[in-house]
Each structure stands twice: as structure tokens, then as C-alpha cells.
């Protein structure tokens, strides 16, 4: 850190601040860290490892499907692989990686020192890690789920899926849900109550808005999947309840309703943060304030609201009341309006700004192109007569990969390049970045575009092989080749990240001349983020000349003091002291994990989880020594 003398506007004792906010040294410090940057980085890194695993599984599937009657994978193995692929990508990669970006960036963007509940944050990460290890650990001991990432009963029920694979799947959901819910709670409070003075609602950066809406969606959607996976499925399997057992009054469709009540919002939970990233990248790179800020915010909120009314469109084939078709189609179409507004606002921003083209912008263009295509097939699927043909075929596979890879992964990669200097303190190599973009872009389209065609020709999803002579051979081969181009692009992406992290050019605080507060912090930021908390006077905080902005003084530096502000206009309300690093979140997570993992074998382990968890929580909340008493 540069000494205070060269930073003319620092009114803080940096040494004291650093000592107060740093994690403890050594392994103990690593395990007990509650710093949002460290935990955010851990989330992102762990999620990328799961992305590699999920991608590897995808390659296995593509190899198996490259030609008809292939015997590369057996039927059983293929079912396990696609189950793991879907589960990994949805629960262990896509949601956690967005959470990680949020945990890292939100406190910086709103101008505070940490998330609202730092220990909860650490606990959430450990639960996520434990969930991932649990699923793959079970797989290692041949308890591999094979009923799909959706695990519809009765197929996933006790009768048709003996063994422990599905139980492992169901309990893994609990781990990741707990983690996602923890993050949602702390981000909501961080964004609503810990913003820098002056950052009124209409000045919150778009990325923070997207994380806020996403967090609320998590709060309302994730309990549903816990009901579906734990209460319905796991209890039916291990305790003998009858929620989805038609023989005793249960109903398999109940599971589908509840699962999709979660499952549809889940798509937006993944996708909304990506929209926020696109807005951030575009604002900085077009060097103009993002066009249509209120419209963008409202369409995010609208997206979040409408997403909860669409779950039925995953169930058209189950035989819905005829009279409802018009309603269901109309609502499903409606979600296209909010997405359309976003796209138009970005185009307007591009049109009237002065664009600087970097790798991040490449990914944004790739996103717009792919996502618009995915949106169009989405509109097609909203039509019930069409959906009844395309449902559960490769057309749908193509559609949601266009929406999820195009709509979430490309912006994520763009954001990764954009914020790389902030994460690591080094610039990422542009040439390799563009190369990886083009490979990913071409490979993606080569892989997934033919799948539209395959679906039209009647190739259903989740088949481990197909008979020759149906006209599916060539398109499948093309898709497999495309998958390898994606692999190449991905490898270059990784190589670039590793290489730039070690030997890239040193990054300044604000290499892109960005508009939001994170660029005022160091690259990478000091443990306390800002020497003095900033004061915000406009929507594009950093583009306001320094002379027009104030900084906050008067927060104590010798303890972890933060500023709590009002929701509406971020008027400072009171100060608050945050807890110190602690091993208890890890221990609590460990206790819960042991119990939850054991519970797939016997109910008794829930009591173990409760007792260990309770002991952990008591330790967590026990008054510190020395006691923090205020004067």
C-alpha cells in the first residue's frame, strides 16, 4: 500500500486500519477469515473448478453421442454423467459463481468495508464447499445420482432408484441452498443498509440492483426446492412418507409444481447478475452513463416478479386444463418484454456512447447475439402447440444453453476480464482474451446450433444413444466437434488467467476509467477496501470530479466499525461494529455437514446436525473476550 503522503485525500491511519481489518496470519487465519474479498475469491475459484468438472462431463456426453449406437459410455454411466452435469452446472457452478462475484464486488461498489454478516458469509462458503465435496465424494463411493438434475419421482423414488445416489443429490441441494440463502440475506442487508452516504436508491450501480433482485428471488424460490428435494423426495425415500407416492394419496405432479416454482426463478437467479455485469461493462466502455437507468431497474424487478408466475410452462406436457393455454402462453411471452427493454437500453447506450473495444466488450457482444437467439427460441417455446413438439427434445437443450451460456456465462467471462485487475492487481492479456472469446463463440454455436435442428427432427433429450438412419448423425458429430472447440477456448481462457495473474502488467486502481466505486479502491483492494468511505453525489460516482465529492471521517479505526445508512437516500444512520474473524463458522458448517451427510443413511443424523450446529452457533455468538462495550 502506498503511504498516506502520496494519497492526498486520506484522513486515516492506514496502519491501524490494516491491522484492524486484516485476517490473522497463517493457516488459522486462512480458515478463520471473514473478509469478503477472500471469501468471494474462494467462491469464484471453487465454482470454476466445478465448471471444469461439469464441462468434462459435457465432453463425455458429446463423445458418446458423436455417432449412433456408440458404446463409449454405458447407459447407466451416461445417465449418471448427465445428472452430474446438470446438477454441477446449476447448483455448484452457476449460482455460486454469481454469488462469489456479488460477495466480492457489492461491498466495493456500495462503498463499505465488508458484507453485513461476515461470519455468515464464511459459513455460507464452507457449506457450499461441503456440499460440492459431499456430492463428488458420494460419487467416488459409487453413490452417483442418475435420475436427472430435476429428479422427478417416481423415477427418483425409493422403488425405481434404489441405492444412495438420489439421496446424495437431494441432500447436496440442502447444502447449496443454505449457502445461497446466507449470501442472499447478507447481500440484501449490505445493499439496503450499508451504502456510502449519498448513494440513494436511484444511484445504486446496476450490478448491485441485479444482485438485490436476485437475492430476493433466492429468498422466495430456494425454500421451494428444499421442500421438493428434502421434504418430498428424501423423506419419501428414507422415512417412508407419501408425498409423491400415488398409492398412498401422494402426487408425483406435486413435486413438479414445487420444483419448477423454484426452477423457473432459478434461471433468472443465474441470469440477472449477468445482466448487471453487462450494464457495468457497457457503462464504463461506452464512457457514458448507462441509458435508461430507471427502465433497466424496473425491468430487473419486473423480471423478478414475473418469473414466479411462469413455472407451469415447464409442465405443458403433463396435460393442463385446455382453458388455461391462452393465459400460460401470454404470461410466458411477457417475460420477453422486460428482456427486450434491457437489450434496447444497451443498444441505445452503445449508439450514443464512444465505445472502447476490449475483450470484455467482445463477450458482451457475444452475449447480445447469443442471448437474442435464445430469447427467440424462448418465445417459440412459450407457444403451447410448439412447445408440445419441442419439449424434452434437443431443441430445448439448444434453447437453454443459448440462454444460460449466452445469457450468463458470456457476461460472466466478460465481467471476469473486466474486473480481473481488481481481483488480482494485474491486467489480463487482451490478445489471448480475444482468441479465447472467438474460440468460445464459434465453438458454442457449432455445438448448440445443430441441436435446434436435432430437436426438430425428433431427437429427445437424455438419450444415451440413438439408432442410425434417423438423420441425426451429422448434426451430432458437428456438435461434438464444436464441444472440442469450446474446450480449446476454455483452456486458453484458463491459461490466460493463470499467466496474467503471475506476470501481467501491474494494474492501476482504475485502469478502465470506470464509473463505480470499486475502481476507487486499490487493485487489489486493501482489507479495509477504502481508507475513508466515499460519499456519492451522482449515479456515476467516480466520474464526478474529486473536488465535488466528500469522504467520510469519524469512523473508529481500531475496531471493525462500519456505517449503517438509510434505505431510501443512504443518509448515515448509525455506526455499527462488526465481529472479528472466527473459526466458529467453519466449525458450525462442519457440524452441520457431518449431520446432513449422515442423514441420508439414518434420521438420527439430523439430531447430530442439530446438536453440533447448535454448539457451533453458541460458540459463534458467545461474547468476545475482551467484551466489546461501548463508552
Amino acid at each position: 500500500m502506498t503511504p498516506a503522503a502520496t494519497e492526498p485525500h486520506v484522513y486515516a491511519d492506514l496502519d491501524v486500519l490494516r491491522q484492524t481489518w486484516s485476517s490473522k496470519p497463517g493457516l488459522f487465519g486462512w480458515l478463520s477469515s471473514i473478509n469478503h474479498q477472500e471469501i468471494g475469491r474462494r467462491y469464484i475459484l471453487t465454482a470454476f473448478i466445478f465448471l471444469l468438472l461439469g464441462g468434462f462431463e459435457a465432453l463425455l456426453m458429446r463423445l458418446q453421442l458423436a455417432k449412433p449406437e456408440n458404446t463409449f459410455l454405458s447407459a447407466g454411466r451416461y445417465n449418471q454423467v448427465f445428472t452430474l452435469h446438470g446438477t454441477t452446472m446449476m447448483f455448484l457452478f452457476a449460482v455460486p459463481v454469481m454469488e462469489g462475484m456479488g460477495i466480492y464486488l457489492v461491498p466495493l461498489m456500495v462503498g463499505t468495508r465488508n458484507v453485513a454478516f461476515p461470519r455468515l458469509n464464511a459459513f455460507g462458503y464452507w457449506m457450499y464447499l461441503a456440499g460440492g465435496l459431499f456430492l463428488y465424494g458420494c460419487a467416488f463411493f459409487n453413490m452417483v445420482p442418475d435420475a436427472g438434475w430435476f429428479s422427478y419421482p417416481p423415477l427418483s423414488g425409493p422403488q425405481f432408484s434404489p441405492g444412495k445416489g438420489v439421496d446424495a443429490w437431494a441432500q447436496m441441494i440442502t447444502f447449496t441452498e443454505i449457502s445461497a440463502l446466507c449470501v442472499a440475506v447478507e447481500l440484501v442487508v449490505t445493499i439496503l443498509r450499508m451504502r456510502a452516504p449519498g448513494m440513494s436508491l436511484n444511484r445504486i450501480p446496476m450490478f448491485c440492483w441485479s444482485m438485490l433482485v436476485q437475492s430476493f428471488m433466492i429468498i422466495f424460490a430456494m425454500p421451494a426446492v428444499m421442500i421438493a428435494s428434502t421434504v418430498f423426495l428424501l423423506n419419501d425415500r428414507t422415512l417412508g412418507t407419501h408425498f409423491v407416492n400415488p398409492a398412498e394419496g401422494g402426487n408425483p405432479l406435486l413435486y413438479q409444481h414445487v420444483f419448477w416454482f423454484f426452477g423457473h426463478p432459478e434461471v433468472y437467479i443465474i441470469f440477472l447478475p449477468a445482466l448487471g455485469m453487462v450494464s457495468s461493462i457497457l457503462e464504463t466502455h461506452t464512457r457514458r452513463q448507462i441509458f435508461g437507468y430507471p427502465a433497466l431497474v424496473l425491468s430487473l424487478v419486473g423480471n423478478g416478479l414475473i418469473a414466479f408466475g411462469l413455472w407451469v410452462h415447464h409442465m405443458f406436457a403433463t396435460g393442463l386444463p385446455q382453458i388455461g393455454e391462452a393465459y400460460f402462453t401470454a404470461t410466458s411471452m411477457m417475460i420477453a418484454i422486460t428482456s427486450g427493454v434491457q437489450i434496447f437500453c444497451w443498444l441505445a447506450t452503445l449508439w450514443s456512447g464512444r465505445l472502447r473495444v476490449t475483450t470484455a466488450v467482445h463477450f458482451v457482444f457475444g452475449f447480445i447475439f447469443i442471448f437474442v437467439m435464445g430469447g427467440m427460441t424462448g418465445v417459440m417455446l412459450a407457444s403451447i402447440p410448439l412447445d408440445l413438439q419441442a419439449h424434452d427434445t434437443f431443441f430445448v437443450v439448444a434453447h437453454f444453453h443459448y440462454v444460460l451460456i449466452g445469457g450468463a456465462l458470456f457476461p460472466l467471462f466478460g465481467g471476469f476480464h473486466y474486473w480481473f485487475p481488481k481481483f488480482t492487481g494485474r491486467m489480463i492479456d487482451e490478445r489471448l482474451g480475444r482468441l479465447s472469446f472467438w474460440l468460445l463463440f464459434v465453438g458454442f454455436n457449432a455445438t448448440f446450433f445443430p441441436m435446434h435442428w436435432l430437436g426438430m427432427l425428433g431427437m429427445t433429450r437424455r438419450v444415451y444413444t440413438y439408432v442410425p438412419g434417423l438423420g441425426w448423425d451429422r448434426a451430432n458429430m458437428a456438435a461434438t466437434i464444436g464441444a472440442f472447440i469450446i474446450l480449446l477456448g476454455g483452456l486458453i481462457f484458463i491459461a490466460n488467467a493463470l499467466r496474467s495473474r503471475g506476470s501481467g502488467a501491474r494494474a492501476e486502481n482504475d485502469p478502465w476509467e470506470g464509473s463505480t466505486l470499486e475502481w476507487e479502491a486499490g487493485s487489489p483492494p486493501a482489507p479495509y477496501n477504502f481508507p475513508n468511505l466515499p460519499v456519492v453525489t451522482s449515479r456515476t460516482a467516480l466520474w464526478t470530479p474529486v473536488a465535488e465529492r466528500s469522504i467520510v471521517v469519524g469512523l473508529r479505526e481500531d475496531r471493525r466499525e462500519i456505517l449503517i445508512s438509510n434505505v431510501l437516500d443512504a443518509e448515515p444512520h448509525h455506526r455499527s461494529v462488526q465481529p472479528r474473524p472466527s473459526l466458529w463458522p467453519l466449525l458450525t458448517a462442519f457440524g452441520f455437514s457431518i449431520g446432513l451427510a449422515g442423514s441420508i443413511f439414518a434420521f438420527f443424523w439430523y439430531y447430530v446436525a442439530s446438536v453440533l450446529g447448535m454448539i457451533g452457533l453458541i460458540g459463534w455468538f458467545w461474547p468476545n473476550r475482551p467484551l466489546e462495550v461501548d463508552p
Partner: protein
Amino acid sequence: TLFSLRRRHRSLPQETLERLHQASAGTEAKLRTAVAIATGITVLILFGLTVVSISVGKIVSASMAPAGSLTIEVTGAQWWWKIRYANDDPSRILQTANEIHIPVGQSIAIRGNSGDVIHSFWVPSLQGKRDLIPGQPTYEWLQADRPGEYRGQCAEFCGLQHAHMAFWVIAEPADRFNAWMDHQLEPAMEPADEQSRRGREVFLKAACVLCHAIRGTGAGAQIGPDLTHFGSRKTIAAGTLVNTKGNLAGWIADPQNIKPGTHMATVPIQPAEMQPLIDYLESLR
């Protein structure tokens, strides 16, 4: 558009950032109009598509099989299809498997059910999907306007051999359909030669009868597909193999090799008995 946009902006000289950060009020107003118009057009297009979609749905459901039409009960099972032609006259109820014959130009009612997990009944060229759900029947209808053979497949993941759960719909003119129906209603043909007679004995002696039925013989089990007119079907093992003697031999000898996980048991048959058995089954036309 995007890439031309990109070029346009790259060629422009840099201006001072302060002037760029905030577009002028006039530009903003123009952009606002443009975005509003674009959104309006989107809404109109979506509205149009909704109307089109709904009217297509109406047209589709308008040709739904009227009450009293030919009703076929389709029951999904792990990994084959049980087909039952319903009839008020119990003697004209027909049970068969993996192949549906229908008369051309008539709307046929399908009543879907499942004996185990959720399957989905789908003939891409004739109709959309309908899930088959244990414990609650679902309804669908089919109509073929031209004679022909249409492939159908299970469209809901249903376990290990979901990939090998196909069937064929064969649409024929009404008279040929009726002839087929009458023929199918008859019990199995008496073996015509010594070889087939031996084959029937093999069948009835072996474990085959624990699962399969051949009307007119002692075999009446309902666990696996009904084989009364097996020889007349296009495929073996729910669309997995073409129905030839060679394929049948391979299938009986080692079903797990051809369709791993299938519930068809490997029944030990002496090599000398295999040929008669095959000849017998293939003679069941």
C-alpha cells in the same frame, strides 16, 4: 448491426471524457423515443404471436377425437409400450405392444397411463407430447392424414433404457386397418410345420411364459409384451432392433447385451432349441 456499430465508433476520434459521460438532453430524448418505439413493436409482435399461438392451439384441439371414437389405451412401462384397443364389446378388446395401427383420416383418442414411472407419449409427425403419469390418466388424440409408418418415442426421461423406448404408428386405410384388427383379435396361429411346433414347446417349457402371453396357448402372463402376433411387428424390444430372425436370436440369447438393464430376463435356451423357437415366434404373424 452490432459489428458495424463497433466499427463506426472505433474510427471516431477521442473526445474529452467529461463531455461524453452525460449525453445531451436532446440525444437522451431521441433515444428514449427510439427505445419506447422498439419496446412497443416488441409488445405488438409478442401480442401477435400470442394470438397466433392461441388460434393454432384452438385449431389443434378442434380436431380432437370426439366422444365415441376409437380409443387406444397406452400404458408406458420401463422400457416398452403396452397398447390396448378399448371396446365396449369385451371380445373385441385387443392387447398388443410397441406398435399402434390406426385408420387414416380418423381422430383416435389416446388414454395414457403408466405402470411405473413417468413416460411421455410422442409421435413427432402426428402430435405433440403427452406425459403418462402413474395414478392419473392423461388424454391425447392422434390423426394421420396419409398412410404411412410414423416413429414414436418416449420423451420423458424414464431410467436406464429411456433411449430405447420407441414404437411405431402405422396408419392404414380403414379397410386394411379393420382387416388387421380382425386378424389381431384372433388367437395365435397354429404352428404350420414341425419346426415351429417344437418351437412352441420350447416357449411353453421355458421361463418365457412367466412374463409373456400368446393367446391360444397356455401362456397368459401380463408382465412383458403380448406376443400373440409378434411376427407381424416391425421391431423387437421397443424399436431397438429390426424384427429379423437373426436379431431375434441375438435378443433372446443375450438381451442385456443389446439393451443393458432391460427387464427381459436372459432365459437359458439350448442352442438346438433356439432355431425352432425363433421360427415359431416369427411365424406368429
